[in-house]
């Protein structure tokens, strides 16, 4: 994941192929121009370029071009898709940056991202520490912890709505039975509760992925290191704090980064559970952009929101990698 050159450190020492070897000796001589071209294309550096070209083209057409087009659209006043837009300069940006809606969404997105990242990484860490023990059936459990992540977001939302339903939901039933609540709680009905509920549901979906990554990192710690700490008299928490966490710190930095970017990107669960409500309490940027473009039919306004979001995420990405991941990159470099 880390954009470091390390995985490329051992390229195959493949010798450039000889022209005559393709596509098979004497027979090829009859079609010399084709054979020669084919032979050239299989030599360095052309072979490498040739193989990577399809994916490069695909990426340019579906990521680079759309991004540039988003900037163009943000300078027009296109309404619904297909209508002609007039050039309006920075008018869309002025309007958006002056709106309370934009800043409220920024706030909600930051809260959402931070809380989700904390819950997912912490949940992943706890699960990884538990599964890193020796127990009967560990192989099975370490594989199927992934179950929540395998569940499609639509099923996730259905499940949550069903379990949290004020009249039929099992959660309300159990809470009432335990005496915690006296009247049914509408988990998706009030702003704060809806925000927390959506966060929990989303964190449940993602934490197994991070648990697996952290578990893999924990297993790279040599047994002698933890045993040595034990001999030195460290208890469980001492070992965790002084030995295990420092050993996997670099992996944790990478995971926190990925988790935060993924969380900022979430649409499905929020839209299906709350549609950004109640009272915009769960209105993150993906929801706002979708809403502007496809409910209000203001394509240019939606594009104009995407551009500062992109800039913000880019700044965050650069800052984070410089602050937390540089060491790792330098260590990994040959």
């Amino acid at each position, binding site marked *: *994941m880390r*954009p470091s*050159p390390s*995985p*490329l450190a051992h390229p*195959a020492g*493949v010798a450039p*192929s000889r022209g005559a070897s*393709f596509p098979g000796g004497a027979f090829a001589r009859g079609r010399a121009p084709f054979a020669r071209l084919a032979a050239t294309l299989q030599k*360095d*550096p052309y*072979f*490498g370029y040739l193989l*990577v070209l*399809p*994916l*490069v083209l*695909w*990426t340019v057409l579906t990521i680079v*071009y*759309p991004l540039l*087009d*988003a900037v163009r*659209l943000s300078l027009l006043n296109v309404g619904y898709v*297909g209508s002609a837009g007039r050039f309006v300069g920075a008018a869309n940006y002025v309007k958006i940056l002056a709106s309370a809606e934009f800043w409220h969404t920024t706030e909600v997105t930051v809260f959402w991202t931070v809380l989700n990242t904390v819950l997912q990484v912490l949940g992943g860490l706890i*699960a990884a520490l*538990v*599964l890193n*023990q*020796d*127990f009967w059936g560990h192989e099975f*459990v370490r594989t199927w912890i*992934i179950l929540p992540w*395998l*569940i*499609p*977001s*639509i*099923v996730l939302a*259905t*499940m949550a709505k*069903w379990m949290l339903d004020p*009249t*039929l939901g099992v959660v309300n*039933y159990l809470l009432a039975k335990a005496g915690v609540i006296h009247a049914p709680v509408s988990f998706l009905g009030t702003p704060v509760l809806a925000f927390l509920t959506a966060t929990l549901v989303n964190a449940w979906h993602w934490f197994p*992925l991070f648990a*697996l990554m952290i578990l*893999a*990192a924990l297993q790279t710690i040599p047994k002698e290191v933890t045993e040595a700490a034990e001999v030195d008299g460290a208890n469980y928490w001492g070992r965790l704090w002084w030995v295990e966490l420092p050993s996997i710190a670099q992996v944790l930095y990478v995971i926190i980064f990925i988790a935060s970017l993924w969380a900022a990107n979430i649409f499905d669960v929020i*839209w*299906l559970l709350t549609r950004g409500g109640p009272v915009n309490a769960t209105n993150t940027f993906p929801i706002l*952009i979708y809403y502007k473009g496809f409910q209000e039919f203001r*394509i240019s306004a939606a*594009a104009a929101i*995407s551009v500062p*979001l*992109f800039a913000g*995420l880019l700044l965050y*990405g650069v800052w984070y990698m410089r602050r937390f991941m540089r060491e790792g990159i330098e260590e*990994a470099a040959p």
Partner: protein
Amino acid sequence: MTAVVKVTARYLSVAAVLAVVVLPAYWVVINSVKTLPELISPVPTFWPHTFTLQHYADLFTQIPFGTYFRNSLYVALAVTAITLALSSLAAYSLYRCRYRGREMLFEAFMSSYIFPRVLLLIPLYVAFTRLRIIDTLTALIIVYVTTIAPFSIWMLHAFFTEIPPELEDAAMVDGASRFGVLVRIFLPLTATGLTALGLYAFLMSWTEYFFALTFIISGPQKTLPLGMAQFLQDYSIDWGVLMASSVVIAIPPIVLFAIAGRWFIKGLTAGAIR
């Protein structure tokens, strides 16, 4: 004594993690086979007292479930095939070939993965409308490959770099062409990695909702998550059918993971701990 406490604590902690993971799924499965009165009774039963497959039968009579299923399957299979073709060639190039700009390309792919897909929504919608492929499954196939391909380079790393270069050298000495070595010798050796990647591509396209919601408008083009979502928003929710369709949608990913899960985890974690 302390040994007993330790072992008990260990198994209790594992049981707690398992409960968090499994119980919600269990709840959906058992409720999908309860009869309607038991299902909507205010006092829930934790083990079904009644048993019916009526909700599963209703799937096919109440909603065009077969159409949605077919659409989803078509999209997922197409995305899997295209992703495998594009990424295996690109990964071979990035990990096994030598040329200028290779490291830069690798970093560019990795950053395009980090980069959020919501930014693509508006411009791609406009472009697809101009190309007249909005409201077709083709639009979904294109955008899914885009979101999956960069990660696939990451997934394949562990599998592609563990094969010794000498193997390719030896095949080349025997007179095979370089492309022949790649297709007939190298790729078969990375079959587990390609299977893991295929699983990921299938899973991602099978469950995707965001782009499907925006790019697909008419009923006959809907994928499963889309068809099911409209059901969830209805004024009077038919929980039985929703529970049954939840189970049916979740089965293919679970079956695929049972087959190729080990390799998927290997690809995923090797990328993270590298």
